[in-house]
């Protein structure tokens, strides 16, 4: 913070006395980040770090795992134990991390292509098992890092480099998938909803089980520009206009297209034993004293 509009907020060493509240949560030497102007990923990071602050968690016990892609870079910027893994495999990595050290609060933070195309199989099974993970998907409808190819979320009609005549594939509705696979908490917000998203992060961080948050975020460079949808701010304005709050909505009815409503809110909130709880209680009941209860 070498230049602020109020120069009396620096001390003689030039250090700021008042700092951006996101800064303590970032590896500051790694900032500025690589994301494009108007990319929504940075906005989600603000909300996530604010939620960490409000949830007052022991940050030494919060670990973040990302896959590959633009959102995959989040892990590297956060000042937490952080793991930048292989494409699509953040969830199984996080599974091993959590099971090896159940004291950790493990968050998977990745993109739609990473989590739902190459990693779709793992998403389904981790949700089915109720692995104790918070999975955050920044959904920008595209593969950003590789230059704007069609993603499993790209709406029908949108043009991408590998769908040069417009997408004709049916996209996945992520909350519906998460719900069907057994996630205990399913929510969707957009980067317009910064306050709601922050609250949602905080709530989800405090819960157990396989929790899923989808965040709609603009990719101005590769999705919006190619589809003549304007800048990031135009898309966020669209989120504002098109979003409809419907907590508890039937996830069958929350699919997103190029037009029409964007249903937001918390769709699923239920309790099921986590994989580890199920393992411990099952083995205790069938093996009795012979079982060494596992706690890490």
């Amino acid at each position, binding site marked *: 913070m070498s*230049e602020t*509009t109020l120069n009396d907020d620096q001390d003689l060493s030039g250090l*700021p*006395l008042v700092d*951006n509240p996101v800064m303590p949560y970032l590896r500051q030497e790694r900032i500025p980040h690589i994301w494009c102007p108007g990319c*929504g990923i940075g906005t989600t*990071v*603000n909300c996530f770090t604010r939620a960490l602050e409000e949830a007052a968690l022991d940050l030494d016990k919060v670990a973040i795992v990302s896959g590959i892609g633009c959102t995959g870079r989040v892990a590297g910027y956060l000042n937490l134990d952080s793991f930048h893994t292989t494409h699509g495999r953040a969830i199984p990595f996080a599974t091993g991390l959590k099971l090896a050290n159940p004291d950790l609060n493990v968050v998977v933070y990745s993109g739609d292509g990473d989590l739902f195309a190459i990693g779709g199989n793992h998403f389904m099974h981790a949700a089915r098992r109720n692995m104790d993970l918070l999975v955050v998907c920044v959904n920008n409808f595209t593969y950003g890092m590789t230059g704007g190819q069609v993603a499993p979320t790209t709406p029908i009609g949108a043009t991408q480099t590998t769908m040069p005549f417009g997408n004709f594939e049916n996209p996945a509705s992520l909350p519906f998938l998460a719900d069907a696979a057994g996630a205990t908490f399913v929510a969707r917000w957009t980067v317009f909803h910064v306050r709601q998203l922050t609250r949602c992060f905080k709530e989800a961080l405090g819960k157990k089980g396989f929790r899923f948050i989808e965040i709609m975020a603009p990719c101005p460079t590769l999705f919006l520009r190619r589809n003549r949808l304007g800048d990031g701010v135009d898309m*966020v304005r669209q989120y504002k206009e098109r979003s409809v709050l419907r907590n508890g909505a039937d996830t069958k009815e929350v699919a997103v297209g190029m037009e029409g409503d964007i249903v937001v809110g918390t769709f699923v909130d239920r309790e099921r034993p986590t994989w580890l709880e199920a393992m411990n209680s099952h083995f205790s009941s069938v093996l009795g004293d012979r079982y060494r209860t596992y706690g890490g």
Partner: protein
Amino acid sequence: MSDATPVRKAKGTVFVQPEVCKGCSYCIEFCPTDCLEFSREFNAKGYHFPVLGRPEDCTGCGLCGLYCPDFAIFGMRFKDIEAAKAASLASHPTR
């Protein structure tokens, strides 16, 4: 007339790091009191950055900081600024 229009007083302010701003205009667009505007000058990357055009309207709500994808701006209430300064000096006595 003057008694019908109460004098507005800023409750907070913003801190901007012009050099890391990428000009996306999120902060300006989504400020609830519409008190930010683009600078006339450019930063080194060639972007206009936000300035507090109507400082009297700033409530210090912090929304601009939540929106900014580049961590280039944040807002704070005056009372929180004072508390933050005191905390910062207390935690860094060598400063």
